[in-house]
């Protein structure tokens, strides 16, 4: 990779750039979804590109690639995601946006029974180079955040029900840098990949992003902070909470390592197990609800394969086993934050309040 200027981009802009650069490289890539451009069919009135998705990640693409490759859809998730599956089986590389992950209920069969199983049950006859992008998460009581106060059906972190399905890759980027790299990897993957993009990060996170195309590998976790006393394992926005907590723990002499999981399926067990073998303590922080969750899957795997390396029970910090409440007060309490993570670490060390 040649050294070029590294600019600050937002998370959404980084995804936009990944899609744009890949679309220039490969004419078979198309984008589909509700208002991925907006104002469809109104170019004669001077309107194009009115929306650009909830994170503005597809804004501007239609002006470069036109309505043949940037397809606004009616509100018909089951239909257009199914069309994405069919298109992927027959030569295209579709990137389909499901506006919010809560809406996968409207098209779950296409994900669970169709996309994820095609390659396997057809004996490897078809590739399925399909990318599904979708926004997730609560505002965590932050009143300024877009998508906040959206209640039980527009605030969920529904990745466990996706990671559960064999054949499907599930990635959760956490920074503008890895959002671009993982999006490129997802587009180049010959199987179905779902990318979950946190609403809060999507519009607020900014970071250095190289201009040239690069990939961040799917299936690889990243150690984002080195430490020796405890491993904090974060997913998506929760990785930022873990880093924040690591800073404040350092002040009290606890040196935390932070692992950004990045891919939920296939999970990079090795990186997590290796980290725990050094720190001997593990806290998994997950914004999803706890039952059958990724957090508990990670805990179970470490308990099975790394039990001898543990000096304390594994802790998980998750949302409670309830739907997402509307009221900002309750939503702030619902979403895992630094206080709960610190409390979990203190329990491991037998310190604190």
């Amino acid at each position, binding site marked *: 990779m040649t050294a070029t200027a590294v600019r600050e981009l937002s998370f959404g802009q980084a995804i936009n750039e990944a899609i744009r650069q890949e679309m220039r490289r490969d004419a078979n890539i198309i984008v589909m979804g*509700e*208002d991925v451009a*907006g*104002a*469809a*069919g*109104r170019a004669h*009135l001077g*309107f194009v*590109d*009115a*929306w650009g998705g909830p994170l503005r990640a597809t804004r501007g693409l239609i002006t470069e690639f036109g309505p043949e490759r940037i397809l*606004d*859809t*009616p*509100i*018909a998730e*089951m*239909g257009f995601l199914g069309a994405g599956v069919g298109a992927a089986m027959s030569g295209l590389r579709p990137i389909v946006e499901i506006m919010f992950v*809560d*809406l996968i*209920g*409207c098209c779950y069969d296409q994900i669970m029974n169709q996309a994820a199983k095609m390659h396997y049950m057809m004996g490897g006859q078809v590739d399925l180079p399909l990318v599904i992008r979708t926004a997730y998460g609560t505002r965590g009581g932050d*009143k300024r955040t*877009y*998508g*906040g*106060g*959206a*209640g*039980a*059906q*527009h605030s969920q972190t529904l990745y466990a029900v996706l990671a559960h399905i064999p054949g499907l890759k599930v990635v959760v980027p956490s920074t503008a840098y890895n959002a671009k790299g993982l999006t490129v990897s997802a587009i180049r993957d010959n199987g179905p990949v779902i990318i979950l993009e946190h609403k809060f990060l999507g519009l607020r996170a900014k970071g250095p992003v190289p201009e040239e195309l690069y990939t961040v590998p799917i299936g690889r976790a990243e150690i984002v902070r080195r430490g020796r006393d405890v491993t904090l394992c974060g997913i998506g926005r929760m990785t930022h909470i873990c880093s924040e907590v690591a800073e404040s723990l350092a002040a009290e002499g606890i040196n935390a390592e932070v692992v950004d999981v990045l891919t939920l399926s296939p999970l990079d067990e090795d990186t997590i197990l290796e980290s725990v073998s050094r720190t001997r303590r593990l806290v998994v922080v997950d914004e999803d609800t706890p039952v059958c969750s990724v957090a508990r899957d990670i805990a179970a795997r470490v308990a099975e394969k790394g039990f001898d390396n543990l000096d304390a029970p594994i802790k998980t910090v998750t949302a*409670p*086993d*309830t*739907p997402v*409440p*509307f*009221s*900002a*007060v*309750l939503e702030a*309490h*619902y979403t895992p934050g630094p206080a709960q993570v610190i409390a979990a670490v203190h329990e491991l060390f037998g310190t604190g309040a």
Partner: protein
Amino acid sequence: MYERLTLIREFEERLKWLVETGVPVGAVHYYTGQEACAVGVCAALQPSDWIASTHRGHGHCIAKGVEVHRMMAELYGKTTGSNRAKGGSMHITDVRVGMLGVNPIVGMGVTHAVGAALSAKVRKTSQVAAAFFGEGGASIGAVHEAMNLAAIWKLPVIFVCENNGYAQATPVEYAVSVPRIADRAAAYSMPGVTVDGQDTVAVWEAAAIAVERARRGEGPSLIECMTYRYYGHHQGDDTTRYRTREEEQAARDRDCIRRFREQMLDQQLLTAAELDAIESANNKKIDAAVAFAESSPLPQPCDLFTDVYVPARPGEPE
């Protein structure tokens, strides 16, 4: 009807002002401009009848009789809200007045109204259900499945499509394959009509015919109301990115409230003083609703865990 029309308008205008002055009420979708649809349809229903709504549901709630102070408290996230702070704008529900819920998963309310109609038919209650949906929701597969069920079972339901021209920023002529959504009624062997959705009386007349047919056990009908939302898809949406000022002004020139007022005055059914008195009473009602919401208590963290599971009710078998 004028009372309900102007109460909805006043509620939404006040809400818009609250949003713009920074009151955190969560995600909201203003109904302003479409009042004739909710009011015309609900005027043809009995209090015991059911409705199911969309994400843009404040108007349906008020038209069916949900109290505005409980709605406002819900938007403020207070325990006195219709949904005890658990729902917010996109889930306002009041089963006591037959309001089965605002529902932001597009098209799903339609299926629930069909279920309510099935319930009415099985229980022989003579209730009717009205399913509100947008022209955007008309593309959802489940809506078509529900229409077919209603038709084959001759369920007492009326399908009310509020065609406001835009699914978020996607224009109807792009997203829908037929010139009129009412044309689709033929596919389910039910009557389909398109009415001026900014004429409250026209909506009411069409709804009354459909409700009577449903109550007689003759099955569902589809009414398409041609209407317009004056503001964006939600509070942050900039409509200038996808529609013209001229088009917006033309819709406002056909404003349903002004039109209804003129009809009442022309036909000497109500005087200007009487109409003004209704508006002024509504203004006070909204003042009181805001005061109620502001003074109501916020939930406690423990409230997060209430109502997760449905309890057994007294007197039920174990």
